[in-house]
């Protein structure tokens, strides 16, 4: 590489560096360096993450009982409905058998 090429490359590198610095200055804000709020937010979320990891299932049931209660109620309803349909379609001597089977299904559906 000739001296001229070296000089050109060096000059270009210098102007690139200057350009990058100028661009960084455009993006920089004095408040950027203050990470207290970011740090607080992240650290508080890490506490939540740890707690969820350790005893998530029981905590979920205790803190949000409604979805679990709805699920339980839904299964009960399905069991009762199925039992009713099966018992009402039964005819003659088999009626009691179907009725008992329907009851059994409703109990199983509930639990």
């Amino acid at each position: 590489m000739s001296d001229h090429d070296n000089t050109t490359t060096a000059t270009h590198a210098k102007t690139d560096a200057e350009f990058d610095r100028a661009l960084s200055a455009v993006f920089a804000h004095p408040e950027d360096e203050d990470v207290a709020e970011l740090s607080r937010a992240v650290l508080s979320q890490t506490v939540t993450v740890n707690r969820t990891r350790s005893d998530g299932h029981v905590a979920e049931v205790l803190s949000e009982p409604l979805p679990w209660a709805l699920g339980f109620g839904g299964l009960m309803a399905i069991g009762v409905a199925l039992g009713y349909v099966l018992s009402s379609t039964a005819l003659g001597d088999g009626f009691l058998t179907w009725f008992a089977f329907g009851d059994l299904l409703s109990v199983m559906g509930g639990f």
Partner: protein
Amino acid sequence: MTAHKPPTQADAKAVMAALARGERAALARLIAMYGPGIRRYAAQSLTVASEAEDVAQEVFLRAWRHAERYDPSKGAVSSWLYRIAVNLCIDHNRRGGFRRFVGIDSMPEPEDDTPGAEADYGARQRLAQTQAVIRTLPTRQKQAILLKAAGELSGAEIAMTLGTSEGAVEQLLVRARATLRARLELEE
């Protein structure tokens, strides 16, 4: 230009080792080291700059959850963190684009009503012009120049972040600078 001294590799790797052991104090140190740069990068890379804080939080939460996956032999801590940031910004922009398309989100850019905003009009105008030109760059050029200028990463760190060679990064930067110089001079 930020006046802070960039963290050394040895410091950063020690912090990552402590983080992998579950030390929360190490997370605070990591945020102090890389938080400003990552937030700056996210603010410039996201379509909605106000989401930068959320993205920065998510970057460090993922670092906390997956600290044991960081392999010092595969690259710098900065590259590992910025790679998470780059991917999160891509995801956010993609999801945000869809949400705006279906009308869940409007296209927001809140007006800056902070005190002194009027006096800083020139700087904001320069920032807006620069952002407008950067938005027109091809994705890889945009990522490279933002990692350089907003994240203040070296060529090697950018290469590791983007999963490419230093030579390719240099090419991306040369092209990005050329476009920016030409367009910004034209607008001035």
